[in-house]
């Protein structure tokens, strides 16, 4: 799986917007999108929110977890724990990137949020690397990791699987 595919999947998440146009209910294959009224907040998928934002037809409201204090707490919790802590959203990295690239004027303190999310990501990836390293060196057969997001799994998947294949071949050649 490619990182862009994960981002594509992330765009299905819902986010709140305030449109400035009016439109009747739209019936799409993926679901209905309710009537749009100017000034009234409504939940839409991220792909639609970004499209409307780029056409200057709406204002994006940052999700609840995208707040400096909450992210600071999460980062500190992540640094303390050895295991992975629950994430703010299963697609937190992609959503941060998308929303901050296209709608940073609607999100207060965007720079700090970017730094905090990057800190959380770095801590989690470091833990993942350590865990994979101990898995291989102790030749475990089974590992259980809670609270990993698809993007993090995707970063390590190809490398880990190839490594395990190589090691298997080396081991079977030895015997």
């Amino acid at each position, binding site marked *: 799986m490619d990182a862009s595919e994960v981002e594509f999947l992330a765009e299905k998440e819902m986010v709140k917007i305030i449109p*400035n146009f009016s439109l009747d209910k739209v019936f799409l294959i993926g679901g209905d999108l309710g009537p749009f009224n100017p000034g009234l907040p409504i939940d839409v998928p991220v792909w639609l929110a970004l499209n409307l934002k780029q*056409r*200057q037809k709406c204002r994006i409201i940052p999700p609840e977890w995208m707040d400096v204090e909450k992210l600071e707490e999460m980062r500190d919790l992540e640094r303390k724990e050895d295991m992975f802590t629950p994430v703010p959203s299963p697609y937190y990295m992609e959503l941060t990137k998308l929303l901050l690239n296209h709608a*940073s*004027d609607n*999100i*207060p303190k965007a*720079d700090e949020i970017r730094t905090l999310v990057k800190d959380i990501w770095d801590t989690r990836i470091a833990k993942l690397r350590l865990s994979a390293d101990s898995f291989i060196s102790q030749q475990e057969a089974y590992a259980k990791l809670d609270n990993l997001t698809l993007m993090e799994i995707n970063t390590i998947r190809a490398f880990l699987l190839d490594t395990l294949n190589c090691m298997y071949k080396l081991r079977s050649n030895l015997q």
Partner: protein
Amino acid sequence: MFIADIRKDFYEVVANQRVVLLVAPDIDALCACKILQALFHCDQIQYTLVPVTGWQDLGTAFLEHKEQIKLLIKQDDDLSVPSYDDIFRDEDEEGEDSGNESDEGSEPSGKRRRFDEGAVERRIERQRAKREWEARRREILFDYEQYEYHGTSAAMMFFELAWVLTKDTKDMLWWAIIGLTDQWVHDKITNMKYVTDIATMQRHVSRHNHRNEDEENSLSIDCMRISFEYDLRLTLYQHWSLYESIYNSCYTSCSFKLWTLNGQKKLQEFLADMGLPLKQVRQKFNSMDMSIKENLRDVIEESSNKYGMKDIRIQTFGVHFGFKNRFLASDMVHATAALLESAEKDDSETDNFIKALDALSRSNIDRLHSGIALAKKKLIAIQQTVASCICTNLILSQGPFLYCYLMEGTPDVKLFSKPMALTLLCKYLLKAFVHSTRNKRCKLLPLVMAAPKDVEKGTVIVVGIPPESETSDKKNFFGRAFEKAAESTSSRTLHDHFDTSIIELKTEDRSKFLDALITLLS
């Protein structure tokens, strides 16, 4: 087509149709084009973009898209237009006139005499009015076609359209500012108009700045911030060293007369007077000491007043986004103009147009920096050419105007085969000449300049600019003059540019064309 209400008559008409945008090769048109493109993207209107360099191009593009064209939108500088009624009298008045005459024929004979007199008087009255109207019409048309000058910037007009549609963004505001600054940099509008337009833009800028800023929720550093600056008139000084900028800017170079040794000494005195060490001043501006940069503008203004440069500061706007990127509007104008007219061998005109258009968006900073590098080369070339022309007395007074011809071997002459670069050189040269000559009469003469355009085809490009004066209204009469001179000598000329004071001429016809021009204007 003349439009009264831009939103109703223009935008709503094109909103559901496919549009062809024909864009003239100048920075104001480019900015207007960007604004219009952004608006079209918002409303998903399909459009085709066609750059046109002159009336012939316009014609061919029109013919190509003929089947689909219903409304022609050309972006160009506006030329002031007299009111509709003065020129075209409504046709039904004519019909009425002839109708009355036939009525008179069928009147009963008894009343004929009385009617006849009344009718005759009325007819004479009408004819006199008609003659007066014709005379006035001829006068207005003559005035209209004789002088050429520029009206409001097209980019600003499209920004007002966007504002009326409430789709204006900071990007569009910045493009409108660049369009306005282009008119000022290339000396197309008067100072008064520039200041008035700046005030209008300033209102928009403050409106945008107050929209999102708050003490607690400050904007991301990547957001674009436009600010009003009362900044120095030194071209590109923030992207160059201070010394180079002073040396190559038109205003300072002409005031100090930097083509003479005396002038260069004065420049050194000026720098010493401000307390700026030479080593600092020759470094890149960004690497200068912070202590010097802090009060630079005030220090320079004080010192320039002593040296007779009263207007070293000018009202303008600057933008900054990200940590590194700070640009003044005039920087962008110079960079984009250099890209648009780059004289590289491999680039076609459409490529240059696309490159220049790209440089205007925020995501192509590299393109902009390459444009700035080209602009620096262009300015240095202009400075050197001016210095050599003045020192070797290449400017000759031909009676009613001054004339200068750039020989083929002149360095960088390829740069000056493009209209905007040549016009800039022309204005710079005229200013320098006015400062260097002692002949009072010559100071009030306009300048005609010729430079080789295409060596294989053997053509030269000729530009005429009005005389240099403090209160000029920037009206240029050379368009008509060139046409008449070409007609009278049957020289082979091409009046293709949208700016009628720029023409192409065959090298062999140069001398007879000049003679005709002299007799015409004296």
